[in-house]
């Protein structure tokens, strides 16, 4: 019985994959994404934190790209290539965890606000609206400044300021699901809040969540870079702190275009990849969009 059910799941998965493959931009994004994640994960096998150390550098300041330093060096003579590689670990980590945090808060608040129609739902929606109109970048900046600049606080700052849009989306979908007769049937069978939200609502909002998570990661990476650029950063090397460094040390005046361009391109590529994958997932998983396509 379970094996047959598993077979059906596998079939569904392969159908999903077949659908996804038709979105070529999504597949391209996926390839970039997998490459970026794999590179970030295997980085410690080849390099370590020392590539970001200003003490034991090997190159000169602001060396132009050469064979030894394919993407040149920074103001302290560190290799931009190795820095971007190592920095990808922080950028991606913050991106994923902040997105996860934001999605989890958004999902819980959204489902609760949609499921409990009474005062609880109303209060949750007011709170959501309040967060929604808050200028999130400024708030994140203030939070990061108050809490201090560790990776953890950056994640918190981004997560706490970006969940309201997810919550709105999930609430709308929850309301749609809850108006279906099978919810009434389930209540008549004796289902409580937990059963209804986990068995009926969650599976129905899951595809939306998945798609919105990928988009959220992209925006978290951008936010992290912005925060770092504005000076509220983790002490670790990330693409954002590199951009900040290029600005602080006048890379533009030195003509060291690579110092600005390479971290910028890295951000662009990964964010683009996440966005493409997210859009493709949305198109495949959201039946309303699929019908239109």
């Amino acid at each position, binding site marked *: 019985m379970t094996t047959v059910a598993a077979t059906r799941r596998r079939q569904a998965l392969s159908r999903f994959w077949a659908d996804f493959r038709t979105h070529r931009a999504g597949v391209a994004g996926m390839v970039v994404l997998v490459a970026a994640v794999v590179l970030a994960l295997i980085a410690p096998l080849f390099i370590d934190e020392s590539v970001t150390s200003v003490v034991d550098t090997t190159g000169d300041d602001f060396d132009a790209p050469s064979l030894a330093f394919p993407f040149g060096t920074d103001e302290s003579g560190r290799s931009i290539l190795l820095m971007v590689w190592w920095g990808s670990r922080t950028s991606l980590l913050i991106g994923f965890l902040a997105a996860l945090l934001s999605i989890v808060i958004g999902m819980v608040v959204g489902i609760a606000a949609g499921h409990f129609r009474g005062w609880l739902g109303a209060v949750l929606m007011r709170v959501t609206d309040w967060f929604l109109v808050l200028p999130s970048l400024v708030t994140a900046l203030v939070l990061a400044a108050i809490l201090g600049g560790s990776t953890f606080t950056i994640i918190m700052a981004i997560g706490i300021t970006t969940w309201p849009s997810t919550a709105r989306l999930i609430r709308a979908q929850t309301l749609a699901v809850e108006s279906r007769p099978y919810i009434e*049937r*389930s209540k*008549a069978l004796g289902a409580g809040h937990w059963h209804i939200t986990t068995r009926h609502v969650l599976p129905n909002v899951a595809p939306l969540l998945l798609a919105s998570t990928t988009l959220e990661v992209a925006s978290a990476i951008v936010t992290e870079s912005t925060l770092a650029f504005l000076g509220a950063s983790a002490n670790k090397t990330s693409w954002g702190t590199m951009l900040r460094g290029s600005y602080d040390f006048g890379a533009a005046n030195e003509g060291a275009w690579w110092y600005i361009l390479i971290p910028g391109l890295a951000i662009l590529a990964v964010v683009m990849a996440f966005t493409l994958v997210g859009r493709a997932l949305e198109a495949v998983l959201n039946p309303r969009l699929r019908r239109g396509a």
Partner: protein
Amino acid sequence: MTETQATKEKVSTAGASLLEARDLHVEFVARGRRARAVDGVNLSVGEGEIVALVGESGCGKTTLARTLLGLERPTSGEVRYGGAALDYGSKALKAYRRQVQLVLQDPTGSLNPRHTVYEAVAEGPRIHGLADEESAVASALSRAGLRPPERFFLRYPHELSGGQRQRVVIAGALALDPQVLVADEPVASLDASVRGEILALMLKLREELGLSALVVTHDLGLAWNIADRVAVMYLGRIVESGPVEQVLTAPRHPYTQALMSVLPESPERVVLTGEPPDPTRIPGGCRFHARCQILASGKAAEVGVDGKCRSELLDILPAVPVAQAACHYADVAG
């Protein structure tokens, strides 16, 4: 005819009242106005009895059914099951769900499209933590006429026909071994040829499992097909009730008479005038008087009840099995 009536009455009085509404009122606030959806209803369903609740849309029949299921709380009055008032505490309510189950009109919407037939039928046993879920599912499916049950376990609702889907919904209810089924227009969205099959299934379940049922419908033919007793509802109240043979062959309330007259093949058609019923504006006197053809034709005035019709409230009909009508004219003219 008198003989069958006598036996029917014996059945309904002998079977103790299992599910009962006592002076039930349910009110909503709709667009700033108070809607009295259920406005004083006494109704009982006996053991092994099938009762049809008949009325037009907006008469409050669906609200009454939902209140009997405990899905809606009454404003006043009580729902009684097995002689005790329904307890709205979450534990007691959950236990009540195993006794009284629901079948909805639209089988397609009643099933989660992402759940297999097995998951849909197993939902009840899982919620209540019943042992041996698989055999409960299998026996519920075969009792609902889906045989062999294993063949249906892994099908999805969209792979089934409308009749099969409704059988799955019924199996989902049966998996909890309930005593009463509340069915809201169980065949209205099914094809004509399948309709009889589903109704026959309900009769068979009554015969084999002693299942009682309250069938909510707008269709008098359905009541004639399967019900022992019928209750006709108009604007939040039951205006006529009694054994099907009596009420549907010799209706006493003018509203029932009007409903009967619009059936195909009825010799003479009574077309009601006036505004359609609105539960936010229930008229004084007899709630039907503004549309009543007996009052309009002057027949009520002939026996001198027209004043009463316009101003005097009628008593709420008690939950008794004998034929009765809430009508001033019928009281006098017989």
